[in-house]
């Protein structure tokens, strides 16, 4: 390395008052100025602004700077901004180091004096480090132009269609036998009361018939390897025991099944209706193909059955020998759209779900209201009656530190919609018990007031208990909702025939495995973590993997579709470019220092290190190196060095950050 004179420019950002309101930026600049090698040190109100960037560019030219440090926010926000600025001034962008004095200092430190001291050390560390920086080039890697979408609810469907319409091949993997997800259960959608099936089924069918979409239902992703642009994905498709290409969905097998009455738990209707071992998930399922459940089919379970279904199928579509299938695909980008489920409200015994037959959860009522549902859209209680009074309980498990701290976001409007539909179909007195009505969407407040004007009751108070213990004659035989009416300031007891619980949303089953498999972080509630809550709400910290819909957090259909189409846009932007540039933080081995001990080889989980027998040294296969640096830490002779994290760089940073009071 040439021993040219190091000339550093240091820029301390005020970030308005975000930094300067706590950290004394002038004091930091004065301190930094004295460090050998620092030629210019300045503070400026917004370094990320064009003016701030120009300041750097000018100084590079005027003061012949060959190193730049910006002390501002997290590198996750603006590292690229400043690297670009440095590059535009003709300097290698890796002669730059960022010091995080906002997220890691001014925002987290109470005492301005302490914050200033800490900031000095953080900036000093960056200055000491940048002295050892070296010019680097980003590595260009080819990108596969296919896209994987995981999850076939409205999010996955919307994302897949946009990608496919852009001419890219899309693999859409859905866990259950049909796409459609939660939305397929709905009868109407708020606030417009659009018929859900009328707007969803065309999209489902478009997915099935789209030449660019390979729909893989009843399947799950088993493993993911590779990295952005080049993911290798193994998909395990479970056997349907029905040959999809032959089945026309005529349901003759269902009629012919030896079980004359359906008696098994039906997933689509949340168990409100029963199904046979051979069934079609729901009338407008896509693909509309029969499926045989190995858990309830006599032949598959016990090997003994008359196989009347096989006889009934004139297309010979039933195949009891069908085996699980592994499908391997290579894609450049992945969209996760794994959705949500409702919390198990039977764990909240105060609401009586599972104990009182007339306590329902919202999705059951959605299915009941669905014209294709078990009651053909009518509200009929488990005892066969039509309810004359219905209580809808909001925030069951939401906004509750004992359960889910967060607001589940769509329940208010869903509850109002259910109230409207129930009232319309039963003429029952319908009560909403709520904490707040959250109607922050286009047309939502208007819908709320409309439904309120229709005479649906809104009583403000979180219900703590549903009971059947009657205190008055008219409470006999009813479910009684006991609530503090917080607006009237009294305790009320309201007897009803039916209770509908609005359960909190939580991530779909298996989210932990999915997060590990795809290397996507999760929040403490296991929603997938977006890269930035505001400016990168779709991307994840795993490059090339994007989020759509409720897997990232509860949201309603409009927001889900918006995010899904956004995710499609992000994925398309990535795969359409044809290549990506990777951070050059890979390792290299100095053959002069390598003793050929091969300690490193076992360290690398990616097989990027190979011992060269001939030369007696270990070598790096650059294409496989992911840049973790574990081998570098293990190398006893210091022969392995990681770009951007070379020993001397990290050691200089550590020494710099610890130099309390030092000059």
């Amino acid at each position, binding site marked *: 390395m040439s021993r040219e004179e190091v000339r550093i420019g240091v820029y301390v950002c005020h970030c308005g008052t975000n930094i300067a309101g706590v950290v004394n930026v002038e004091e930091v600049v004065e301190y930094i100025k004295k460090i050998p090698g620092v030629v210019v040190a300045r503070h400026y109100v917004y370094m990320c602004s064009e003016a701030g960037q120009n300041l750097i560019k000018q100084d590079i030219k005027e003061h012949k700077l060959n190193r730049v440090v910006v002390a501002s926010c997290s590198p996750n926000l603006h590292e690229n901004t400043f690297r670009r600025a440095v590059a535009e001034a003709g300097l290698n962008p890796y002669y730059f180091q960022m010091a995080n004095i906002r997220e890691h200092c001014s925002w987290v430190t109470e005492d301005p004096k302490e914050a200033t001291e800490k900031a000095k050390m953080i900036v000093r560390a960056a200055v000491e480090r940048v002295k050892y920086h070296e010019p680097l080039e980003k590595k260009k890697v080819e990108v596969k132009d296919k896209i994987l979408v995981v999850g076939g609810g409205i999010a996955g469907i919307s994302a897949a269609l946009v990608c496919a319409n852009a001419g890219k091949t899309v693999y859409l993997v859905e866990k259950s036998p049909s796409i459609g997800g939660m939305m397929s259960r709905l009868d109407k959608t708020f606030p417009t009361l659009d018929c859900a099936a009328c707007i969803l089924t065309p999209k489902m069918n478009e997915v099935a018939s789209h030449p660019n979409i390979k729909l893989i239902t009843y399947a799950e992703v088993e493993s993911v390897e590779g990295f952005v642009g080049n993911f290798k994905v193994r998909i395990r498709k479970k056997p349907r025991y029905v040959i999809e290409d032959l089945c026309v969905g005529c349901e003759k097998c269902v009629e012919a099944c030896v079980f004359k009455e359906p008696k098994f738990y039906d997933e689509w209707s949340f168990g409100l209706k029963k199904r046979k071992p051979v069934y079609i998930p729901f009338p407008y399922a896509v693909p509309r193909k029969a499926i045989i459940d190995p858990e309830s089919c006599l032949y598959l379970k016990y090997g003994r059955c008359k196989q009347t279904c096989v006889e009934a199928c004139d297309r010979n579509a039933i195949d009891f020998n069908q085996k699980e299938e592994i499908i391997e695909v290579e894609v450049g980008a992945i969209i996760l759209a794994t959705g949500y489920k409702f919390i198990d409200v039977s764990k909240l015994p105060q609401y009586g779900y599972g104990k009182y037959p007339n306590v329902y959860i919202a999705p059951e009522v959605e299915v009941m209201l669905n014209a294709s549902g078990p009651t053909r859209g009518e509200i009929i209680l488990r005892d066969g009656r039509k309810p004359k009074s219905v209580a809808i309980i909001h925030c069951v498990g939401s906004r509750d530190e004992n359960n889910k701290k967060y607001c589940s976001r769509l329940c208010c409007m869903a509850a109002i919609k259910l109230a409207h539909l129930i009232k319309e179909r039963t003429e029952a*007195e319908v009560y909403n018990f709520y904490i707040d*009505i959250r109607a922050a969407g286009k047309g939502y407040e208007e819908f*709320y*007031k409309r439904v*309120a*004007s*229709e*005479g649906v*009751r809104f*009583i*403000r108070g979180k219900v703590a208990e549903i009971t059947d213990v009657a*205190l*008055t004659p*008219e*409470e006999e035989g009813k479910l009684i909702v006991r609530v503090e*009416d917080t*607006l*009237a*300031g*009294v*305790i*009320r*007891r*309201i*007897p009803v025939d039916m209770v509908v619980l609005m359960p909190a949303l939580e991530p779909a089953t298996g989210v932990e495995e999915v997060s590990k498999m795809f290397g996507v972080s999760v929040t403490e509630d296991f929603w997938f973590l977006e890269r930035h809550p505001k400016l990168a709400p779709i991307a994840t910290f795993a490059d090339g993997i994007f989020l759509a819909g409720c897997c990232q957090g509860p949201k309603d259909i409009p927001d889900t579709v918006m995010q899904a189409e956004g995710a499609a846009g992000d994925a398309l932007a990535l795969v359409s470019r044809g290549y990506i540039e990777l951070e050059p933080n890979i390792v290299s081995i100095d053959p002069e220092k390598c003793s050929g001990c091969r300690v490193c080889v076992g360290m690398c989980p990616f097989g990027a290190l190979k011992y060269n027998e001939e030369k007696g040294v270990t070598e790096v296969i650059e294409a496989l190196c992911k840049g973790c640096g574990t081998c570098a830490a293990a190398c006893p002779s210091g022969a392995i060095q990681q770009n951007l994290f070379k020993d001397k760089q990290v050691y200089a940073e550590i020494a710099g950050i610890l130099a309390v009071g030092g000059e």
Partner: protein
Amino acid sequence: MGKVKFESEVDRSFTEEILSEPGGEAILKCIQCGTCSSTCPLSHFMDYTPRQIIYMVREGFKKEVLSSRTLWICASCFSCVVQCPSGIKIADVMHIIKRKAMAEGVYPKDEFLPKLYKSFYESVKASGRINETNVVRKASLGKALGMLGLGLKLRGKGRLSLAEESVKDVSQVRKLIEEAEKA
């Protein structure tokens, strides 16, 4: 809050009645924001704020609403009406409720205005016009005596007349009132 409110004590037909009267139709749109109570210059004297009154009407708390002191404190300034974000005519709703409270005679006995209204009404019915001083005197002699000092001062300035005026066509006005009462 001393007791539990049972649904058997709630009268939702009361809500329906209010909804059916001119000015009462929008109460279901109430979002309980409290603008009415906030803008009301007299809400701090009330037993239930205007927001609570609307809520209790909506919930059918007939007894509490009709016997509320709030009705007789409301000065019908219409601040609530022009500011309500849901277009509810709170002051008009108060008038509807007051009529019901007057009809049922459930107003607080120490409030003077219900008595004044009755006396006023009788006077209009009798002659088609009223004399304020006489109306007050007939409603409560005590009240009139309490304001005697002020009355004398005003009389000195020619601003207090005790002369009972009447319309010329008393029979027409009486018939009008009788027909309206029947309507």
